[in-house]
């Protein structure tokens, strides 16, 4: 039976990971991820899992590499500047085709920044921070329920494609409390088998998990295989939500917590007769192109609302049909919009484009 509980986003993420069959968590504390680390610290021993507080994020992502190489479901979490330290490891995980889940409860940057929530890691997560031609799949939850659902889903997607999957959340999602329905327990024996894992070569040929092949030709081949994989992920794994898009002429594009704030403003604006709708990307990589392709011809402007100086807007500019103008509303550094602020912006923009 599905349980309905009240939890913070951080806790929901952790509990969902455990229910998805993950028994290993390695991380270094960093605000605003701390509650997720602490939740796993007390919850994992209850399910006979392993929790290690690593000496740094540099180390944590490599401990993840080891457990992923052993064929087990594994998760780590950090925030912004800590995730930056993991980028080398993420590139290695992608190169070695290892599944794992990486949670970024982002804070304001750049540099050490401060601990207010922000969406300034969109580019770091979706455009890659590590070296080489690779992608990680990125999901952007917008509620505590989605923190659970998308984390739970991330393990399946990671296993299906043998690729790291990231959850891009922020301090507000991590620490706010909402009711949610927890996902069903996966039995460990029902998890997909991983015949490629290094588990001790008994009764089989030996396995290798390599981040560096022996020849240049092999590396070129691997890059081609990875590229094919990424094309198929782009074709199959776009996820999004559309609201009021049936007659929208002004389209708000927002992900994560910004979309929750924007939704309230949009509902007020619609009451005033403003034909505004929203495309909410849920997969940030692959960025959902289909809702933009399928939109009605009436669309006259996009308003990208994000808590940064302009990151997701680059993707919107890339894939918008025709030269529909794209406006940006947002600031980095820990700035958080209010619904009233967003409403005023929508009204002003609507007047300009009418």
């Amino acid at each position, binding site marked *: 039976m599905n349980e309905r509980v009240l939890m913070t986003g951080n806790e929901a993420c952790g509990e969902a990971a455990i229910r998805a069959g993950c028994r290993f968590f390695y991380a270094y504390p960093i605000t605003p991820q701390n509650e997720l680390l602490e939740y796993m610290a007390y919850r994992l021993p209850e399910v006979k899992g392993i929790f290690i507080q690593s000496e740094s994020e540099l180390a944590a992502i*490599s401990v993840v*590499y*080891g457990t992923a190489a052993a064929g087990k479901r594994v998760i780590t979490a950090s925030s912004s500047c800590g995730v930056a330290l993991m980028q080398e*490891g993420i590139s*290695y995980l992608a190169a070695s085709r290892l599944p794992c889940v990486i949670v970024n409860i982002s804070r304001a940057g750049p540099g050490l920044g401060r601990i207010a929530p922000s969406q300034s890691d969109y580019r770091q997560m979706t455009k890659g921070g590590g070296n080489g031609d690779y992608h990680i799949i990125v999901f952007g939850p917008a509620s505590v329920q989605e923190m659970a659902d998308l984390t739970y889903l991330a393990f399946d997607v990671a296993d299906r494609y043998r690729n790291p999957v990231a959850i891009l959340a922020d301090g507000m999602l991590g620490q706010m409390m909402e009711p949610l329905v927890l996902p069903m327990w996966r039995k460990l024996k029902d998890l997909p088998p991983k015949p490629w894992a*290094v588990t*001790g070569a008994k009764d089989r040929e*030996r396995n290798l998990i390599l981040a560096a092949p022996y020849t240049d030709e092999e590396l070129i081949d691997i890059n081609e295989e990875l590229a094919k994989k990424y094309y198929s992920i782009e074709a199959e794994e776009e996820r999004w939500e559309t609201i009021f898009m049936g007659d929208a002429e002004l389209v708000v594009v927002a992900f994560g917590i910004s979309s929750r704030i924007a939704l309230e403003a949009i509902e007020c604006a619609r009451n005033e007769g403003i034909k505004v709708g929203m495309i909410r990307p849920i997969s940030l990589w692959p960025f959902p192109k289909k809702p933009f392709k399928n939109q009605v011809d009436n669309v006259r402007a996009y308003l990208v609302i994000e808590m940064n100086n302009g990151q997701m807007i680059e993707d919107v500019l890339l894939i918008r049909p025709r030269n529909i103008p794209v406006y940006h509303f947002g600031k980095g550094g820990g700035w958080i919009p209010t619904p009233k602020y967003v409403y005023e912006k929508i009204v002003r923009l609507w007047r300009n484009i009418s």
Partner: protein
Amino acid sequence: MQTFTRPNSMSMENIPYCPGCGHGIALRLIGEAIDDLDIIKKVIGIAPVGCAVRSWRLFKFDMTQAAHGRSPAVATGLKRSLPDKIIFTYQGDGDSAAIGLAELLHAALRCEKFSVFMINNAIYGATGGQLAPTTLIGQPTTSYPSGRDPRVMGYPINMSEIIAKISRNAYVARVAINSIRNIMEAKKVVIKALKTQQRQLGFSFVEILSPCPTGWNMKPLDSLKWIEEKMIPEYPLGEYAVPDSLHN
């Protein structure tokens, strides 16, 4: 009929190192130990960055690579999720004492139950001969051609002494592979390290003084002499820590 030949746990690949390089000897000792302890079906090795990166070709058991310096972290991830398997890392002096120093020390502090084999050849071989944390005072390298000057780069690091000090119930030893006697002693030590892991007693660490004729700009036979005359006085051989219940 007894035959001395390539151990069963090693593949038929040619040894891909320079003439006189110690890797071929050290890796063979590990292969022999795995044969002697009959653990080939349980072993997972980690080959990190450096000349060690291609050592995976020489073995017939499961192996993985690791980011530079992070093999103790990868080993932690493997050992904690597969506690009954035998996990070892094979790291150079840069991997263990420079970029990976934190990961190695913390694995030792946590008393992780895997084995680290550190090849100390006092130089960075794979990148062409730069200074290593274990480079000796006065020893020329491509990054400090007039020799290591303590006023600029401090003094060499003694890893075995440090690990012995910080890791409880660990097996820590330093050996050399520059002579028959030293190689035979090294083999016994490698077996003891793996036995420490088999009996789940604690961390095991073996520092192996190894020749790098190319990096040192010496003929191979001179490099064996250099280990005897210059390295061993700086890095004394011996067991620095033996766990309580490790007999024979």
